[in-house]
């Protein structure tokens, strides 16, 4: 197991290193100069040079990159050019909102997927299957911005029972009941696609498992179908489902940008949009790197969990 981890870790680090340099270089190659954005069109050459030196833009690219890495290591993320304030604080504030949203959506998706796929397989009823399959296709086919609008129209405009957007005014801890109201629509909207994809995968995986010979062995022993699904098939389908969950998490991160825009949810998505349109280098870099880092970490984590769940990888080698 440790060996497996040691084999997997370097490639994750390489991806991260290359991505960090790529992001750094890309941001600098973008047309549009932050100096003119900051100094204004009429600034004197001296004033421009001062700003340039201040931002460290007069040094060679590699030097700037190494300086940046050093700062990252010290968690010194710099100051935002445009928005003002410490990048660290801006990111931290946005991150809380985004994490609450994506994690809630992820949990929703997992619960829905588990319940509906197990139901579909255990009941094995034509009508239940047809209904689930229909709902599933629809949920996958409806783009996030469509469901978002429909949800707002239905529950905030036509039936004004839930807020149309924004974060709970008192935070998430003080009044969880109100927080839940604010969270419900965006989380459902975000979870819908991932939940449907996950359900589809898990149902198919369970059906495949039920065709395996070990299930026939278990049935021949007089173990009921329901128990086989719950204690054996599900356990066998778990490793591959975890991998799919990791991939879906990436989709959720991307979808969060959109959902945050639809529901005016002040998270990292809005921040990154704002940072890019304002050519706010320090902020853009950190946000892009953060998204890659999260994604790479999730991939690594799912790989490890996958390996851990599968005794053939965990223990290895036939005797």
């Amino acid at each position, binding site marked *: 197991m440790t060996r497996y981890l040691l084999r997997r870790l370097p*490639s994750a680090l*390489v*991806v991260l290193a*290359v*991505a960090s340099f*790529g*992001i750094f270089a*890309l*941001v600098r*190659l*973008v*047309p549009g100069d932050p100096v003119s954005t900051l100094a204004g069109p009429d600034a004197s050459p001296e004033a421009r040079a001062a700003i340039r030196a201040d931002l460290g833009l007069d040094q060679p690219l590699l030097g700037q990159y190494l300086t940046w890495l050093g700062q990252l290591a010290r968690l010194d993320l710099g100051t935002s050019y445009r928005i003002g304030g410490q990048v660290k604080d801006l990111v931290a504030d946005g991150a809380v909102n985004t994490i609450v949203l994506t994690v809630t959506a992820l949990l929703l998706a997992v619960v829905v997927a588990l319940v509906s796929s197990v139901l579909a397989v255990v009941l094995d009823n034509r009508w239940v299957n047809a209904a689930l399959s229909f709902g599933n*296709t*629809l949920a*996958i*086919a*409806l*783009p*996030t*911005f*469509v469901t978002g*609008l429909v949800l*707002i*129209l239905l529950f905030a*405009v036509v039936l004004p029972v839930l807020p149309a957007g924004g974060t709970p005014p008192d935070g998430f801890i003080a009044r969880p009941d109100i927080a839940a109201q604010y969270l419900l629509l965006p989380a459902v909207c975000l979870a819908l696609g991932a939940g449907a994809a996950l359900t589809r995968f898990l149902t198919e995986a369970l059906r495949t498992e039920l065709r395996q010979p070990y299930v026939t062995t278990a049935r021949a022993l007089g173990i009921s179908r329901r128990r086989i699904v719950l204690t054996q098939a599900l356990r066998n389908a778990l490793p591959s489902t975890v991998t799919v969950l990791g991939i879906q998490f*990436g*989709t959720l*991160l*991307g*979808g969060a*940008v*959109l959902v945050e*825009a*639809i529901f005016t949810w002040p998270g990292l*998505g809005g921040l*990154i*949009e704002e940072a*890019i349109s304002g*050519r706010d280098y320090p902020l*853009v870099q950190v946000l*892009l790197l953060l*998204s*890659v880092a999260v*994604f*790479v970490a999730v*991939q690594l984590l799912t790989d490890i969990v996958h390996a851990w769940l599968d005794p053939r990888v965990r223990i290895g080698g036939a005797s």
Partner: protein
Amino acid sequence: MSESLIDVAAPEGAAPRPDDEPDQRRRPGARSALRRGKGLAGVLLIGVVVALGLLAPLLAPYGPTEQIPGANLVGPSGAHWLGTDEVNRDVYSRTLYGIRTDLVVVFLAVPIGAVIGILVGLVSSWWTFTDVIAQRVFDLVLAFPTLILAIALTAFVGPGLRTVFFVIIAVELPVFGRLTRTSVRTVREMPYVEAAHVVGAGSWWQLRRHVLPNSWEPLLVQLAVSMSVAVFIEGAMSFLGLGVRPPHPSLGSLIRDGVRNMYDAPFFAVGPLALVVALVLGLLLVSQALAEARRS
């Protein structure tokens, strides 16, 4: 052996030996999968949307950017089926023309990305060196969630249809590259390809005669899926203001306009929303039908 147990010369239709019984069922091909059930429904949905887009100049009473004097934010009526927007344009006409933008994205950008991806996948499944590099690059690109990649690329080239194109190609290239690589590798391990190798067939022969014809099916399924994703990407990017630049319409930008006027004129977004759903649903149904035909 006098009394042959397998009578090979027996006329067809004579009772075959039970278990050694050949499989008489014809394999349902991709084409027949699209002629019934889900497949047919998908093809019809796509067909309707494509027809509306292609026939836009004939069907639309006004030009896509034509401003009609005196018709500011009017509701649906005989003259303006979906009303007009805040700068006096006919929403129905704009919606029809907007389809065309999406059609370009779906039927041009995706195939371009797919073709490049397939070529890279083919090359990398044959040469280890290219493979190592391609896999790392794919890892890297796929490490960005699609929309974040879209935002980053927009920062690089600015918003516009061109950016949507780039994003779709950038997203689909690794998807097709990976898929080609795995399906080619799977087919290449098959004994019949090995058999061709043993009789002296070279790589090109194996590829052309055996590997490609037997590995295009998963690619076809993916193509349909990717096309539906492209509709989604265009919509999301335009919705975020990264897509087509005004005044040109696309389904995504029309939805964005609709949202802006949601409280005053909720009927704005109905047309483009319905069309987006129809297109995505159609493509998904086609992909499901193809995937099911492949599995059986």
